[in-house]
């Protein structure tokens, strides 16, 4: 199902940027976890190759076919989320994992793909100038269900990372001023309700800590403070690869996962941050520029939602490490250690490639 011309149209630059950023991540993961018994950098290599394999295999399937069956995929994902919520075993305090023979899978990550495909299906035939109430509400309902299931695991960070995907779809569908205000009001009301009833104390602490991180430096503010110390003490050129005292002496929490950007800041300095930031920026730019290189509406939605999903997670994570966003447990796409997250991002990029390579093909 794949022709020669399509192979010719594969965006190899995007794949190169994807791999380069992943390799940067692996290098930093090695620096921050080489002393731990589990070889995280090797595992991440494994995930990268698995991701590339899946990426190329998926290219053979027409994306519109994937969109057509997206509802079944979505139902499967939601069912798995429901089942692990009921019968799952707690790992690291949440029920977000399925444990296989030697690897653990986080279904909540893969669910992002299902949401993207389903929203693409809902909006594929959407030709109005602005988002209508029916389309808005029905897509909202489809996304709220997995958000709820994941939030109950409890993994609020991942649950909230679904929202930018939905917001991406809304943006393309077009938001009138009225809709925007309505969405804003809903967000504020939801915020107040969850503060009053849903959020646990430690989650509230994380939010109040943003305002006063020095109040309790050994308590809730510890992570943010240590992360800021790590980044700030890196200076212009950094302390050198695998030489960050914060990271190497373990003052920095979750170094190889959520706080990996702090390790970059400490060990490679401002120069390293800018260089890696530029690589990342090029990757994101390539994604956003791909939006217009789709032959149909479905493809545009897919690419834009993928771009926004990765971009939003990038900013949330980096803002978190410098204390501008609450600690949400959202990994840095491509750079953080985490198999499910990496695999999901590779599949997402695969969808982008899929759309791009078929842009000249007649239906």
């Amino acid at each position, binding site marked *: 199902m794949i022709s020669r011309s399509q192979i010719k149209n594969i965006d190899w630059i995007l794949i190169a940027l994807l791999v380069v950023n992943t390799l940067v991540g692996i290098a930093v993961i090695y620096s921050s976890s080489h*002393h731990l*018994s*589990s070889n995280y950098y090797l595992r991440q290599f494994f995930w990268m190759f698995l991701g590339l394999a899946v990426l190329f295999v998926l290219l053979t399937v027409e994306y519109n076919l994937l969109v057509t069956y997206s509802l079944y995929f979505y139902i499967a994902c939601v069912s798995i989320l429901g089942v692990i919520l009921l019968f799952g075993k*707690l*790992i*690291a*305090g949440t029920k977000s994992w399925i444990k296989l023979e030697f690897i653990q899978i986080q279904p909540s990550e893969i669910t992002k793909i299902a949401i993207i495909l389903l929203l693409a299906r809902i909006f594929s035939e959407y*030709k109005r100038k602005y988002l209508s109430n029916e389309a808005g509400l029905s897509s909202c309902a489809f996304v709220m269900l997995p958000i709820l299931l994941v939030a109950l695991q409890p993994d609020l960070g991942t649950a909230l990372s679904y929202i930018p995907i939905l917001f*991406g779809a809304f*943006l*393309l569908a*077009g938001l009138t001023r009225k809709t925007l205000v309505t969405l804003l009001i809903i967000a504020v009301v939801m915020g107040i309700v969850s503060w009053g009833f849903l959020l646990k104390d430690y989650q509230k602490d994380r939010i109040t800590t943003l305002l006063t991180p020095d109040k*309790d430096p*050994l*308590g*809730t503010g*510890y992570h943010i403070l240590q992360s*800021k*110390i*790590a*980044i*700030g*003490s890196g*200076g*212009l050129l950094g302390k050198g690869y695998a030489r960050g*005292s*914060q990271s*190497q*002496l*373990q*003052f920095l*929490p979750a170094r190889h996962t959520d706080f990996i950007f702090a390790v970059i*800041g*400490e060990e490679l*300095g*401002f120069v390293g*941050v*800018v260089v890696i*930031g530029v690589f990342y*920026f090029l990757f994101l*730019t390539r994604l*956003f*520029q791909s*939006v*217009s290189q*789709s*032959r*149909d*509406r479905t493809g*545009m*939605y897919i690419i*834009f939602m993928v*771009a*926004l999903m990765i971009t939003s997670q990038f*900013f949330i994570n*980096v803002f978190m490490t*410098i204390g*501008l966003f609450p600690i949400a447990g959202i990994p840095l796409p491509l750079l953080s250690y985490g198999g499910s997250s990496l695999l999901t991002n590779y599949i997402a990029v695969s969808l982008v490639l899929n759309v791009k390579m078929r842009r000249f093909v*007649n*239906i």
Partner: protein
Amino acid sequence: MMNNKIYEDLSLVSSRAKIAFVVVRILFVILIIYFWKLQILDFQVFWQKSEENRIREIIVTPQRGLIRERNGVVLAKNIASFKASLIRENCEDYDESYARISKILDLPPEVLKERIDKYRSLPLFQPIVVKDNLTHEEVARIKARQYELPELVVQSEPKRNYPFGTLASHVLGYLQEVSPAEMEMERYKSRRMGDLIGKTGVEKQYEDSLVGEEGKVFEIVDSIGRKIGEISRIDPIRGNEIYLTLDFELQKKAEEILEGREGAVVVMKPDTGEILAMASYPNFDPNKFINRFTPEEWVDLINSPEYPLQNRAIRGLYSPGSLFKPCMLLAGLDQGTVNESTSYTCRGSVIIYGHPFACWKADGHGVVNLYSALQHSCNIYFYQLGKRMGIEEIARYARMLGLGSPTHIDLPGEKTGLVPDPEWKKRVRDEPWYPGETISVSIGQGPLLVTPLQIAVLTAQIANRGLRVTPYICEGETNGTHEIERQPKDKGVRSPISQEYFEKVIQGMWRSVNDRGTSALARIRDFDVCGKTGSAQVVSKATAEKLAQQKIEIKTHSWFTGFAPKDEPKVLVSLIVEYGGGGGATAAPSARELFELYREKYD
């Protein structure tokens, strides 16, 4: 190129995506600016902070000071002990860690989890103690798994040990983990979570001397927290050694005497106030408390109806019974209510204010003067004396002689007792004072309450012919250079009551022991013991009469207090056995054993 039939116009959608990308570019610029601020402008501040982080400060717990008795026998020391701690940073999966550790240490996972949650605010690299007093097998088991379980570490620490177990347990006290409430207090502000502090007795009173000063090691640590170098070290300073006034053998004897009987014993030097022995039964083994976790024994002890943790010598409140009679006599003589020629006739009972009041001897003592009143402990004499003095005067003299106020011994938690008067009754019970109550108080019954130590200090004042001393348990301290800093000796306060009246009371007490009086069983040849027995009623008069009608024997608290020898007194013994029956039969012979031991050892 564009075929409009196939390609619909998507320029609107495409332009919206471009606007979003503009926002992304702006955010990137903001991000770079913020990193510029953090890493270039604020670099110095954060670099300083990270330097402080790399050097890890390790606290070295000082050895707690020893506690010795007067001749140097060690009553509290330190032994090596191991504790297991969890380093959360090395945990990959908490639940799995809990499960495995709970198997190794034989702890329920919930207890483990609760413990970790309690200290969740500590930094992740700080070890949290999960079990102490490890056995050698447990240490071996942990060591064998140190590579699979890097989060579980063994640390050694000095552990308090009381080699004689229950001996002097109430005086020594015990240690327990400092509570969050105590950490707020000024006294414990330098303590850390998980530190053990003295909770009662000498361990609490002299905590500041015993605890020493903690040492610090500043070390550079490697990536998994292992020490790779030491920058500097401040050695811990061992706590001061405390010398107590206690005499090991007298203490042991006092506890043997009480064994199995609830009560208290105080052996004291009357001229200085040194406590030679202080015993309380039931007792406890303080070794069992030195544990960061609440053991079942602790709960059992707290909930026990016999209050084994209470030091009855300073916290037990009892009616003094006839022990109050010397006090009454001193008051009467000083007031001029009675003198050497005053006598009353005892017919076994007397009617005062329309109510019959009985003497303990049903057929009466006949004509009684002040000496024979003390000798035979005749109630009638003191009823008449009390009636003539009135409650206000009785209360004034009782207070003058130290009742109703603390003795100021250097032990925590002393009770003050109670000297009742009409003002007190009005305030506390909102009832008027009945004249009949004055008659009860005259023989040490009614609401009058004393501690055994107050009785001992009162006896010392009589023995000293009016000189009142402050009792003490700590002889001095040494900081290792063997210089004992003696506690400043209390010169004592002289009573306004004339010395000659004390001589008369002593004469009566001498007769009580040596002239076939109530204390005859305390007599020792050539040691001139002077003493007084007491049999304090535990129930009210009305209940007692009811029980007597039913022919139920009422067991009274059995008291004795006395000193020896009569001239130049060297030792005094005050002793109470709860529900021991008559003071003469139970308490007096027990006291005799202590007098004899003292004489053997020191005379």
